[in-house]
């Protein structure tokens, strides 16, 4: 287990290298003179020169790359010129909102999705199976950001049960926090539970057709034990794969959904930065979200080993 973890951590190094390189190059892709955009129309030639120097725009690309990696190793992601503070502080301060939103959604999607999938597989070829699968397919065809707006119209504007947007910190008012998070989390979950439901169903169908399940049933074991203890545990590997893929989709979905629900997470930070052309924030937000995803993928791989003892080396 430990040896696998070390191997997995090492193999993240080339991935992180590509991630940081791409993030660096994004700034270089911007056409035209960025300093003019940052400075605005009132900027004097001296102002523009100062901006270029601060961002290193007057240096050749390789020198800027060296500086980028040098700063990176010291944990410095640059300075935001519109917020006038360090990028890493601004992003880390907002990360908990994004993570809790994506995490809640992942939890909801996994629970509902797996239940739907198990139901469909146990009642294979009945109306329940078909109903669950149609629900799943419709769910995964709905654009989540739009569904969020529909939810706001329904529960915020028409029924008035929940706020139409905004955020209350958990520490301040837990009920207010729950009220501000329930719609966004549910919105994100509803579009992804379909993917989990479909995978669970097909993985369960594979397992349920096997001899040992028939044996377990034949010796009079309770249906619930057969399904959850014997079948589900062996169907977990493909389900975990999908949960891993989905955690990425949910992370980026959270970024978009935050804009819809006006939640102060990394996503709103990035989108705001795009409007203000604050590139260091865009780079920092992108880089940190990607790092979170790389870390989540490592966790997913560890979960494989957990659920499939054949992969353990028992040291």
């Amino acid at each position, binding site marked *: 287990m430990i040896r696998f973890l070390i191997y997995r951590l090492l193999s993240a190094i*080339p*991935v*992180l290298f*590509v*991630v940081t*390189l*791409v993030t660096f190059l*994004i*700034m270089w*892709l*911007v*056409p035209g003179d960025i300093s003019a955009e940052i400075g605005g129309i009132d900027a004097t030639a001296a102002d523009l020169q100062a901006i270029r120097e601060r961002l290193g725009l007057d240096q050749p690309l390789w020198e800027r790359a060296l500086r980028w990696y040098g700063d990176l190793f010291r944990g410095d992601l640059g300075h935001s010129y519109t917020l006038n503070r360090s990028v890493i502080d601004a992003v880390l301060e907002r990360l908990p909102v994004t993570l809790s939103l994506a995490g809640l959604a992942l939890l909801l999607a996994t629970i509902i999705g797996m239940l739907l999938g198990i139901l469909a597989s146990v009642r294979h070829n009945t109306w329940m199976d078909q109903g669950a699968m149609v629900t799943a*397919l*419709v769910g*995964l*065809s*709905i*654009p989540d*950001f*739009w*569904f969020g*707006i*529909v939810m*706001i*119209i329904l529960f915020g*504007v028409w029924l008035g049960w929940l706020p*139409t947007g905004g955020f209350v910190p958990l520490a301040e008012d837990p009920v207010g926090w729950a009220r501000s998070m329930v719609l966004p989390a549910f919105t994100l979950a509803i579009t992804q539970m*379909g*993917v989990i439901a*479909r*995978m669970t169903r*097909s*993985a369960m169908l*594979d397992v349920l057709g096997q001899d040992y399940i028939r044996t377990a049933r034949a010796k009079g074991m309770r249906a619930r034990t057969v399904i959850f203890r014997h079948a589900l545990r062996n169907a977990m590997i*493909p389900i975990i*794969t*999908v949960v891993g893929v989905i*955690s*990425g*989709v949910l*992370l*980026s*979905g959270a*970024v*978009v959904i935050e*804009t*819809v629900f006006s939640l102060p997470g990394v996503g709103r930070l*990035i*989108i705001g930065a*795009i*409007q203000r052309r604050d*590139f260091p924030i*865009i*780079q920092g937000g*992108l880089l940190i*979200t*990607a790092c979170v*995803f*790389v870390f989540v*993928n490592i966790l997913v791989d560890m979960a494989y080993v957990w659920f499939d003892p054949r992969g353990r080396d028992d040291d």
Partner: protein
Amino acid sequence: MTTEAASDTLSIGREIRLARRRRRLTFVRRLLAHPSFLVGFVILVLFTLTALLADVIAPYAPTELNYRFILAPPSKEFWFGTDAYGRDVLSRIIYGTRVSLRIGIYVVVMTGILGTLLGTLASYVKWLDGLIMRSLDGLMAFPGVLLAIALAAALGPSETNAIIALTVTFTPRTARIVRASVIVVQGMQFIEAAYAAGAGHARIIFRYILANALSPLIVQLTFVFAVSIVAEAILSFLGVGPPPPAPSLGNIIADGRSNIQEAWWIAVFPGLVIAVAVLGLNLMGDGLRDILDPRHSSARDRP
């Protein structure tokens, strides 16, 4: 005697051609007999016709301002209501499908070409494999459409840049799928036989390997199509897609978000259109997968 032999070869040639045609025909017939493929296909055809015939079927010009009907609810004159400038939402949606379709097609074609190129290179040229795959892994470490958002933001809001951003985002997984299926085919005996028979690399790659490794790619590309329609809407919604006043499904929804208190119709209808189009493509993809690759279960390998 010579004429007899010649007519023999002729008839064998014709037999082979006929057999091929029969196989193609059964394939098409099986597809059309697959209920979910058929439903999805009809939806896609309707969507395409809407985009192509926008000039004919749209009741108003999509950018026509009408200050007498600002935020008018759905009615007989304006089926889907009007927006904050009095523009007809239905007409804007109809024209917006053009953007979705155009971007979807470009992204599918470019992702298909690049994905095939990179996937085949990685599996065929051993020393390139590690380099290509690690780079693609790196690109896939950016969750979902986040990379596309950042790329489109850097390049500037335009249709071409949206296409570039989405292609870069969806190519890695496609290339991976191509590589995996090429590796399987590469190990088969008929490839060895082709080498032994003296076939060149180009012939082996195109005629033998790719021809037999195509199915997963086709299935993947229908899903890429679906995802790019949603992703385009996300980019436009966030203001980094094709710029207004030209309508796209995403920027109509963005207009609707700003008028959410008084005009639900602006945001609701374009999203429904996206959902139906994506549902259609997902149904087609499921159908294609059932027929092309029966062992494969659904919901895996989504971009």
